[in-house]
């Protein structure tokens, strides 16, 4: 039975889905999930678990699915993960859990992510509450930022009986899950909001529109508002630009701006006020997941969309599945191409992107082949919109307003890897704010570790 092929997952057909923002992947039915689960060998020394950053007991939850015991499966997952419906959708599974699955050596790995998603969706639809909070212990913890790191830390502490308040700068909790990752990969209303509602049911308070460092400082939270500890999960939201001529022209956006207008502000919906400009022909510069999200969003808004990436297709940092989906949706890949200037008309609008062709040179010390410019290869792509997707770094708002909080040269907060403790007593940090832009599951893992460390610190102090 292990030789059987993976049960294919149903998806919206590409022609149809580029005209809407509904979820692309439709997920397994119960029958399909059971069939896929039955491919799992239930390994004794399961390699898959070791590469899940939160160590979900994969063989155990999958064996419940085999028997159709979905509520049981949900409980197993809940022991390790607070956001399974999210991770099942957006984890880079092919390089994590599924990348180590024994079946993957000769054939196809078990579709662990899709199974996790199925279980989480089923539990939500059947209103299974996987966890209940311990009685209040009288201690207060402030969590800054409501992305996966903050949500996880808050959830774990609430379960242990802490009074937890999340402070979020934006008007909507969720972090990148609401402002960055598009609806067609991660539905906001059904999945993200539902997860946040679960936290509220555990007693977590969420104060939106509070910008820590501006509205109130960490020192004020600790000294005036009576919080016993603080967890910083403020992410890495500051967008980078290339520094080429014309970058401030009308029609040049950071991926964050473009995605925020569309996802958080819902510009794609008629009845929302925030405008978005997509133009007729768009160049998205970059090759990561963020670039794919921006490109697929631009395609849905009706533009001819190009990915412009300076290395070759094999080096694209985005998940294979995202690249595949983008191609199916008509996104054109211009690889080994590097922008050198944005051309602008007399009114300041983008008219084109000047690029050079690249080729891969000798491997560098790290073994990566560095792209080098091909002589006399300059050409102009006629586009009216350019979206810069070159990565992000942590915002200095918090570090610059918190005395004694150590940061490194990338502006990342310095924190202990095991506990999340920063250079400040009672102040912990985790997620992208510490690592720089990474993944949902790593941010969750950091939130979890910090919650455990905060609990240990506060319980031993009295």
């Amino acid at each position, binding site marked *: 039975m292990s030789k059987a092929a993976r049960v294919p997952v149903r998806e919206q057909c590409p022609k149809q889905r580029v005209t809407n923002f509904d979820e692309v992947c439709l997920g397994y039915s119960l029958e399909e999930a059971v069939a896929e689960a039955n491919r799992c060998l239930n390994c004794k020394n399961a390699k898959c678990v070791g590469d899940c950053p939160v160590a979900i007991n994969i063989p155990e939850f999958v064996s419940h699915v085999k028997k159709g015991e979905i509520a049981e499966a949900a409980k197993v997952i809940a022991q390790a993960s607070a956001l399974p419906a999210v991770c099942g959708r957006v984890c880079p599974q092919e390089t994590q859990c599924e990348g180590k699955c024994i079946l993957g050596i000769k054939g196809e790995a078990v579709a662990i992510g899709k199974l996790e998603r199925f279980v989480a969706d089923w539990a939500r639809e059947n209103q299974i509450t996987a966890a209940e909070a311990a009685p209040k212990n009288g201690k207060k913890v402030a969590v800054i930022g409501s992305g996966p790191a903050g949500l996880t830390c808050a959830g774990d502490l609430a379960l242990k009986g802490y009074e937890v308040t999340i402070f979020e*700068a*934006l008007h909507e909790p969720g972090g990148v899950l609401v402002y960055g990752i598009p609806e067609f990969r991660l539905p906001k209303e059904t999945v993200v909001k539902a997860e946040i509602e679960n936290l509220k049911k555990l007693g977590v308070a969420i104060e939106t529109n509070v910008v820590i460092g*501006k509205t109130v400082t960490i020192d004020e939270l600790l000294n005036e508002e009576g919080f016993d500890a603080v967890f910083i999960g403020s992410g890495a939201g500051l*967008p980078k630009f290339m520094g080429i001529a014309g970058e*401030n022209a*009308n029609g040049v956006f950071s991926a964050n701006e473009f995605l925020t207008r569309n996802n958080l*502000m819902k510009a794609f919906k008629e009845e929302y006020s925030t405008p978005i400009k997509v133009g007729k022909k768009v160049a998205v510069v970059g090759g990561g997941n963020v670039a794919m999200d921006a490109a697929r969003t631009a395609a849905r808004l009706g533009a001819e969309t190009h990915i412009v990436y300076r290395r070759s297709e094999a080096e694209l940092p985005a998940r294979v599945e995202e690249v595949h989906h983008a191609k199916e949706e008509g996104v054109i890949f211009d690889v080994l191409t590097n922008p050198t200037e944005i051309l602008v008309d007399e009114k300041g609008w983008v008219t084109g992107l000047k690029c050079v062709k690249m080729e891969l040179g000798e491997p560098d010390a790290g073994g990566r082949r560095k792209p080098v410019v091909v002589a006399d290869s300059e050409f102009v792509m006629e586009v009216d919109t350019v979206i810069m997707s070159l990565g992000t770094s942590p*915002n200095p*708002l918090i570090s610059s307003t918190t005395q004694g909080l150590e940061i490194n040269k990338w502006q990342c907060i310095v924190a202990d890897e095991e506990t999340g403790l920063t250079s400040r007593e009672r102040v912990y940090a985790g997620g992208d704010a510490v690592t720089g832009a990474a993944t949902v599951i790593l941010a969750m893992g950091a939130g979890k570790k910090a919650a455990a460390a905060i609990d240990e610190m506060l319980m031993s102090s009295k």
Partner: protein
Amino acid sequence: MYKIVEKRQLAPQIYLMDVEAPRVAKSAKPGQFIIVKTDEKGERIPLTICDYDTVKGTVTIVFQTLGKSTLEMADYQAGDYFTDFAGPLGEASEFIFEEIEALKQQKIIFVAGGVGTAPVYPQVKWLQQQGVQVDVIIGARNREMVILEEELKALGARVYVTTDDGSYSRKGLVTDVLKELIDNGTRYDHVIAIGPMIMMKFVAKLTKEYAIKTTISLNPIMVDGTGMCGACRVSVGDEIKFACVDGPEFDGHLVDFDEAMRRQAMYKTEEGREMLAMEKGSHTGGCCGGHN
């Protein structure tokens, strides 16, 4: 939810509101701004903080109706609620970090254009309350559009008013008044100009000739206001700054105003379309009264 506790109309198309936002009121400083979102479907609208009351926990905003969102805002009444009100955002005015005694030695003049008089108010208030005597030039289209003149005088500032059409006080531009004052022998150390981009551009041009330090407050397109999107980027000297976190106040002699003005117009057509849809009646708020 943030309650509107008071609403007043200051001029045709200019409204003042006191909004209950205790956390913002407690931390607000002159020069900073807030972002308001009226309801679930609204956009995030940046507005300068015009006053704050830490006891009542209120923050005063003054806005001019320009397009869809500000028109919708003008429909809100005292007792109504905004869903979101975030702040204080941006850096406070530079002078609040200076020594008071040093400030008292300086001759400071504010140049306020139209609704820009409102953000000037908390700065003048702060300085006058510290015992720093300042001058203010208010420029407006006509008599009706002059706002906060009495309030500024009540703070003890010396106020000069000029109108485009001469319907009140004197006729002419704010730069005419400023030039006259300087040429008549007042030696200003610092000019702080807040108003339409074009006004700030010409004030900065004038003060450059006289080599007077000049601060201006930029109001570029913003989305989040926390440094996350880069929509508000402006060229200052040879650097790119994000106005929402590095500003909104900058050295007027270093700002690329032409670029800033071009960028401000970026969504004109998009929002024009929204306005048309609204006028056709696809929108429920009874707006557009008195607007032309």
